[in-house]
């Protein structure tokens, strides 16, 4: 299994190359090659579950060469990236018919997937930066894919902020290299563990926090997200919101802070504050929106706040030597919500794409009464909305419940944590209100005479909507101890180990 790890990067990059080379004349070939590249990735990612190991590129051993590390935390992200990208490619077979130059779209899409797989797998700081830039550049171009006023403006804003973030990350890598003399994450972790913390070390930490914070769109760094996500074509919005901000932002910051720099209680507090800010500000900005996709984009910020809050709480408790059970619970809640958010948010963006594809508008006030015309979209959109709002049998409820329980347990140790519980529940209510508004304005009410003749979406679009809805319903099953111990427990274990994790990678897992 471990020998197959480079395929996660090689297949999408090779696919992108082949598509630009061959598919510019034959339109169907681009569709076929796109599916052919993403289906094996999906299968490989599912096969990875339960495995772990280190692959040394070119057989150069760890501190000298670059290594790809497969562990519990990478596997979760790897599965999310490849499942969502397969669904998005399936969806774009029909959806992208309205654009010209479809093959360029597929090539950029696969580059983005390759970059994200690389970010998730790599065990080398500079390599992380390189893959991060591959994914980012592809996503800047994809946001501008329509080449209209709004798309270009959003893409430029995203490009400027994203490049500032990347430059901060590169400067952080450089400072860390100057301090420790290593680029390999495991070696850096070992050097950091025995090193005296100077102000330069804190400087590097701040650079990483700002850089990855911009990529993750945490609240003070969020302004690019509500413009970039609605402007992109719907499958790309689903990828950006569902996967990109997680792989490039939350995954990278968690990996660097937990396993490379080491968890400190100050860092935990900062991350928790960012999470709480994202949750509340994101949701209150979302309630007032009348643009379907813009509303969803603000909810992405808010839901990422939940993830970051769970991870920050876990970090704080670990750093203060609190009970590891509570820390594990908080981290588990954060990771579970990360996986759930990927599924329901990409489903919501795909639903908004279906509505826009058929009606030509995404202003909530101009829509209405689509429930009989578009039954599949309506059912899947309802499932996703209830899921993001946290209604019991659906997946969003379980992860929010776990985060709330973790905050309550933490409140026994630090009573001021009770405010976190209150905020989490309040934000969940506001989310529910804003999604009831979406359902009311899009699917209920009177059908405008303009939309008398519309039909439901085509086969491929419906197929990916239905599959994602089924995932939404069934992901609560991951809580069953048997499944949980295979999927989530190794990831929580990796994060709880902190700096000791480097020792394991160097000696071979």
């Amino acid at each position: 299994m471990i020998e197959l790890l480079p395929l996660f990067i090689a297949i999408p990059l090779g696919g992108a190359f082949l598509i630009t080379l061959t598919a510019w004349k034959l339109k169907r070939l681009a569709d076929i090659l796109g599916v052919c590249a993403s289906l094996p990735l999906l299968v490989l990612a599912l096969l990875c579950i339960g495995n772990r190991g280190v692959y040394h590129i070119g057989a150069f051993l760890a501190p000298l060469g670059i290594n790809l590390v497969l562990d519990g935390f990478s596997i979760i992200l790897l599965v999310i990236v490849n499942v969502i990208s397969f669904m998005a490619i399936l969806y774009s077979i029909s959806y992208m018919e309205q654009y010209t130059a479809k093959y360029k779209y597929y090539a950029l899409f696969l580059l983005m997937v390759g970059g994200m797989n690389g970010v998730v797998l790599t065990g080398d700081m500079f390599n992380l930066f390189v893959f991060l830039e591959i994914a980012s550049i592809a996503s800047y171009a994809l946001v501008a894919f329509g080449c209209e006023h709004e798309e270009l403006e959003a893409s430029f804003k995203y490009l400027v902020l994203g490049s500032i973030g990347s430059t901060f990350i590169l400067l952080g890598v450089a400072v860390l290299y100057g301090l420790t003399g290593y680029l390999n994450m495991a070696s850096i972790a070992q050097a950091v563990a025995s090193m005296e913390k100077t102000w330069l070390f804190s400087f590097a930490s701040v650079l990483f926090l700002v850089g990855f914070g911009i990529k993750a769109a945490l609240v003070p760094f969020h302004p690019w997200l509500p413009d970039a996500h609605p402007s992109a074509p719907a499958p790309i919005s689903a990828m950006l919101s569902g996967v990109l901000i997680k792989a490039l932002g939350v995954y990278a910051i968690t990996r660097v802070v937990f396993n490379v720099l080491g968890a400190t209680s100050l860092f935990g507090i900062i991350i928790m504050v960012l999470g709480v800010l994202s949750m509340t500000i994101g949701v209150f900005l979302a309630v007032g929106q009348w643009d379907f996709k813009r509303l969803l984009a603000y909810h992405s910020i808010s839901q990422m706040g939940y993830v970051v809050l769970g991870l920050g709480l876990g970090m704080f408790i670990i750093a203060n030597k609190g009970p590891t059970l509570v820390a594990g619970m908080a981290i588990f809640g954060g990771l579970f919500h990360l996986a759930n958010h990927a599924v329901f948010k990409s489903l919501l963006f795909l639903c908004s794409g279906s509505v826009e594809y058929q009606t030509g508008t995404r202003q909530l006030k101009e829509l209405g009464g689509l429930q009989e015309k578009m039954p599949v979209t309506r059912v899947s959109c309802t499932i996703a909305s209830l899921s993001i709002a946290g209604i019991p049998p659906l997946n969003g409820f379980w992860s929010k419940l776990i985060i709330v329980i973790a905050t309550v347990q933490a409140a026994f140790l630090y009573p001021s944590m009770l405010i976190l519980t209150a905020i989490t529940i309040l934000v969940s209510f506001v989310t529910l209100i804003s999604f009831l508004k979406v359902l009311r304005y899009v699917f209920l009410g009177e059908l405008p005479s303009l939309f008398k003749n519309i039909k439901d979406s085509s086969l491929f679009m419906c197929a990916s909507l239905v599959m994602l809805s089924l995932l939404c319903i069934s992901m609560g099953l991951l809580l069953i101890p048997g499944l949980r111990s295979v999927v989530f427990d190794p990831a929580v274990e990796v994060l709880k180990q902190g700096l000791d994790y480097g020792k394991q990678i160097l000696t071979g897992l």
Partner: protein
Amino acid sequence: MIFPLCFALFVVGLYCVLTKKNVIKIVIGLTIMEYSVNLFLVLLGYKKGASFSDVQAPIIEPVTNLDDFFMKAVDPLPQAMVLTSIVIGLGVTALAIAICIRLYQRYGTFDISKMRRLKG
């Protein structure tokens, strides 16, 4: 002394990105930031006493005295990193300029304060 200057260059680039209204100037600011980081990386590899005339790259002649070589040679790894980062910077700049050209075609201006279709 030279490291603070390098950081000053970084701040100049950041200032340029944050305050300028012209999109081309913003792209130039981004480039300045990137180059300051590249400069910083190269400087990290510098070693006191390393000189070009004393040491030749081992590719020309086999090194006889390894210890002496290590004392005098600079760290080659940052140079490899800088090459990669320059190529990445080229990609970003090319894309940014392409978007600027399209923006000019759509809006008829380079002024960022006049591109205000996205709100809320």
